[in-house]
């Protein structure tokens, strides 16, 4: 991780935090911080990605602006976090995609829809796009099976490869080694933290999602979105098994497993993404990193559109609207896979890695220097 204005500011802020430590009960960042006296840029990268942006530390900070020390941990860690996404991106020539990321994601989505529609019209009889198609293979009459598999498989494989490269780069930069993955228990702890979003619990009562009041809304909406996404992924996987191994060709009936998984997954994603967009709109901008908003809104909107068009497709698949909706839906899905490694989606990779690193660090070891009773004795003026 290179040194930047953001890393310098993050270091300054964390040095104040490390002398204060009032926030140690909120999330994993602060206990991880107290294991260090100095912060290398790799440490900052790790801590920035460990931060879930719950903002509890901002509202309880006696040094937050307008105090002259101007400590705003969630904001500066968000800025560092965004820089880590560029830092570990592959290929390096594409890091520019992270800047103006909102525009990039929007353009990719638009291009995805346009190209899929054009491809479809070029490859199949355009009239199919406007007439009702039913029965097995209906979808493939609109978009040929080989094209669907090539585009989906190609973009998805590309995304996975780029994300893995980013993960490896992050792991090395934060001092990780390959053999650490053999440690089962920390891995289980990390998975628990990932799947429960423990660090959006704010130490029990929730986070400052909107203002200085505590709530769990962001965590819940994220759960809706995340588990909705997983259900949709499961739906696609089941459909692949149906198609390849059972010889059952889509579209499937409403009560079939792929359609049920996809339907509820889609509903979850719509609730989750819409809720997160709403939370972002109404939340206090003071602890937020303004330059990241475009990226966040764009990705949430893209996911919302994918889920919404998926549900629309389900509702109208027996009508003449199916062709266009299918093309639009798949166009969005392809563009999502394509931009995924250069979008807000990478936070999942680095945050998971950071949680695993934290679980490794938390293994029983002698207490760090400075963790004496006196830490606390002095914690009370007046």
């Amino acid at each position, binding site marked *: 991780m290179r040194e930047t204005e953001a890393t310098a500011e993050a270091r300054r802020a964390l040095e104040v935090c490390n002398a204060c430590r009032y926030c140690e009960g909120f999330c994993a960042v602060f206990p991880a911080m107290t294991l260090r006296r100095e912060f290398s840029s790799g440490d900052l990268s790790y801590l920035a990605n460990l931060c879930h942006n719950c903002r509890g530390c901002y*509202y309880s900070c006696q040094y937050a602006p307008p105090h002259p020390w101007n400590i705003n941990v969630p904001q500066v860690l968000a800025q560092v976090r965004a820089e880590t996404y560029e830092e570990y991106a592959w290929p390096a020539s594409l890091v520019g995609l992270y800047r103006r990321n909102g525009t990039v994601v929007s353009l990719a989505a638009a291009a995805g829809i346009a190209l899929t529609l054009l491809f479809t019209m070029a490859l199949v009889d355009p009239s199919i796009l406007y007439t009702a198609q039913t029965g097995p293979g209906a979808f493939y009459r609109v978009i040929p099976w080989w094209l669907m598999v090539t585009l989906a498989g190609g973009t998805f494989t590309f995304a996975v490869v780029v994300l893995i490269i980013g993960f490896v780069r992050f792991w090395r930069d934060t001092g990780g080694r390959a053999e650490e993955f053999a440690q089962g228990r920390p891995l289980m702890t990390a998975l628990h933290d990932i799947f429960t979003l423990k660090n959006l619990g704010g130490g029990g009562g929730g986070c400052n999602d909107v203002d200085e009041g505590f709530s769990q809304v962001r965590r819940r909406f994220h759960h809706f979105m995340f588990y909705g996404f997983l259900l949709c992924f499961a739906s696609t996987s089941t459909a692949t098994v149906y198609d390849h191994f059972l010889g059952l060709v889509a579209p499937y009936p409403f009560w079939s497993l792929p359609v049920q998984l996809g339907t509820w997954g889609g509903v979850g994603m719509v609730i989750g993404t819409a809720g997160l967009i709403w939370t972002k709109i109404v939340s206090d901008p003071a602890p937020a990193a303004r330059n990241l908003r475009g990226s966040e809104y764009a990705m949430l909107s893209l996911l919302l559109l994918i889920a919404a068009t998926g549900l629309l497709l389900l509702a109208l698949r027996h009508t003449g609207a199916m062709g266009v909706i299918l093309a639009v839906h798949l166009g969005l899905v392809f563009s999502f896979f394509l931009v995924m490694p250069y979008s807000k989606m990478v936070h999942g990779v680095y945050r998971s890695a950071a949680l695993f690193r934290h679980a490794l660090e938390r293994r029983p070891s002698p*207490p760090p220097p400075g963790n004496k009773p006196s830490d606390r004795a002095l914690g*009370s003026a*007046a």
Partner: protein
Amino acid sequence: MPDFSRVWDVLVIGGGNAALCAAVTARQAGCSVLLIESAPKAFRGGNSRHTRNMRTMHTEPTSVLTEAYLEDEYWDDLLRVTGGQTDEHLARMTIRLTTDALRFMEASGVRFQPSLSGTLSLSRTNAFFLGGGKALVNAYYALAERLGIDILYDTEAVDLRMEDGFVREVAITHRGFPETVRAKAVVASSGGFQADLEWLEKGWGPAARNFLIRGTPYAKGVVLRNLLDQGVASVGDPTQCHAVAIDGRAPKFDGGIATRLDCVPFSVVVNKDGERFYDEGEDVWPKRYAIWGRLVAQQPDQVGYAIIDAKSETLFMPSVFPPIKADSVGELAVKLGLEPAKVEATIAGFNAACVPGEFNSTRLDGCRTEGLTPPKTHWARPITEPPFIGYPLRPGITFTYLGVKVDENARVRMDDGRPSANLFASGEIMAGSILGKGYLAGFGMAIGSVFGRIAGREAARNARN
């Protein structure tokens, strides 16, 4: 703009923990309540913003406290730090009521850290606010708003117009404009006077100009002065304040907890003439933390310099300001602005006097000096290993002891011994009634929470009669 022509049941002056406890309690008793806070909203909460925990009596483990901490042990701890300068009746009452205060706090939305591992001695005696005092203050203000308490920021009480022990009305400035507030009962929870440097100078002389104020810059003692001038009885030594040694580079006000320096037991502390002046290793640091403010305040220019070497660099909490480092003692002295030859001589003398022993940073280890004045009785190790590290020290004022005298119902007493008809007090402004000297971690919040609730309850009762 509030309607200043109305009469509130209860006026609470101040915006910290004690004031909020009083306001919430009075409101829950059915009174209309106006709370005026002299600070702007961003700096509301007085010194409570900088606190972290409350010392709490409990007979069994709770969600936030381990084991038990009973009245007698609590009282013994208090007796030790105050050297007897306390009121046993009020103190024991406060101690007993902390248990209930903790429940009130939890019910009010204040959140606590789960009890810590248990190896830390304070997880038994002190309940830690999740996120510290500012989070506590935020929780109370949120509750106060929900309950419909009228809250005015940037609003200072300047004159409580008293007639024969009765507060008739209160002159205030609201965002700079003079107004008058009328209320049936008044609770003064406006803190001490530690932010009024001229007042401190009356007790300490010109040395006070070099003091740093760790807490809020808004505790100027305006209400305290006003009440004492009108014949309200006082308690506490008017010339004394609680001071600790903090990083000399800390800001004049509001530096808070982060400015503390824990390196003293492992260091040699010299004054600006390069000379040692006290046994740095007298006892474990929490017990000695509070005396060093006074010791440094008595040195020329009210400054000290703690010097350690590489061996001790990581034995204490990280400092908020970077350590000043050098490859030799002389070079470090120059960087600290001291006479190198003097400091070198002091360190050489100290090194020569160190008796070999088994160093242990976590207990009184008996590593001491021999034939040195003053001696260092523990953790004395020769300062020999570069880099040499220095920190400047200055007195950091936490609070003042002078206050108004109250009875067990938080009712203010007049000089002639009679109780005020409608004036109550809670928090630092009356803490001198219980804490006449010294300090016990988390006891300020105990007094504020307990007396805040009593003052709110009694003011409400007073207003309804």
